[in-house]
């Protein structure tokens, strides 16, 4: 009876030792083998970003910490890049050094700017009228003497607008 217990004990000892050895081996594998290498993480992150349409981003990886560099078109894109990187296996942390492109200034079309100046010069001598350019056409309002309107009417076609004029706000005295 006691021999069997002793045998069992010995067996347990052996199993325990074996289990411990296994654990150590497993642990050591875990530290060096199963975890992706930094170079692999870099490649995976950059691939994931490109696949999602974020071009020109670089990922620098050190021990699983990813630093992203590149230009994002807006803040939403910047957040998105960080999230994508975080989702890659082996990534511990993401630091974003991404810059956001400033929003383009609304540009007045070149033709409109020329027309605005031309119109302003043309109506300069008629103090009681106002003019503006809308969709390439002249909009005039205010009051103007008949003889002045006669002159202005002949100058307007030469200013370069090819769109219908809006003179509904104009009163001819």
């Amino acid at each position, binding site marked *: 009876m006691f021999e069997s217990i002793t045998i069992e004990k010995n067996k347990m000892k052996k199993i325990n030792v074996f289990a411990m050895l296994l654990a150590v081996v497993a642990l050591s594998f875990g530290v060096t083998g199963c975890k992706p290498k930094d170079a692999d993480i870099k490649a995976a992150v950059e691939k994931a970003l490109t696949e999602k349409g974020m071009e020109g981003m670089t990922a620098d990886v050190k021990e699983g910490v990813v630093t992203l560099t590149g230009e994002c078109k807006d803040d939403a894109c910047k957040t998105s890049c960080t999230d994508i990187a975080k989702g890659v296996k082996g990534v511990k942390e993401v630091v974003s050094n991404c810059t956001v492109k400033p929003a383009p200034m609304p540009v007045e079309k070149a033709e409109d700017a020329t027309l605005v100046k031309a119109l302003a010069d043309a109506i300069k001598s008629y103090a009681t009228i106002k003019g503006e350019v809308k969709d390439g056409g002249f909009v005039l309002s205010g009051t103007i003497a008949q003889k002045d309107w006669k002159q202005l009417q*002949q100058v307007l076609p030469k200013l370069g607008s090819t769109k219908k004029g809006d003179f509904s706000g104009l009163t001819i005295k």
Partner: protein
Amino acid sequence: MSLQAKYQELIDAANASGASAMSVNEENGVLLVTAKVPNAEVHDNLFEIYNRIDSNGLSGDLIMNLEIANEVAGANCTVTTEDTALNVRSGPSTDDQVIGMADKGSSVTLLEKTNEQWWKIRTSNGLEGYSYSQYLTVE
């Protein structure tokens, strides 16, 4: 009614008075007419017709750009101010200094059509400068 139909009388009058290089295009609710006309008289007459067809031209549906053929460098012009003499300036703008005057009814030589509103002229005294084209009529 198409715009061309609306302004047919005007187009016919232009042709009848010797307009050349005429183009008539209707697009986006506006009729674009360009032509070269022989002199200021024809030019004014066409505008009168325009104003009759389209009461004071307030519809904005015609853009008529007429070039006056005889308004070229070297042409003689008469000063057609209402009463006063015409200012001759050092540059093509009312911001430029007045350097002399040209009497009403006097003859000046057109040197250059600097822009639609300002012409460079030489008076009979030899004074060269810029005057408002509205008050100059090619003879």
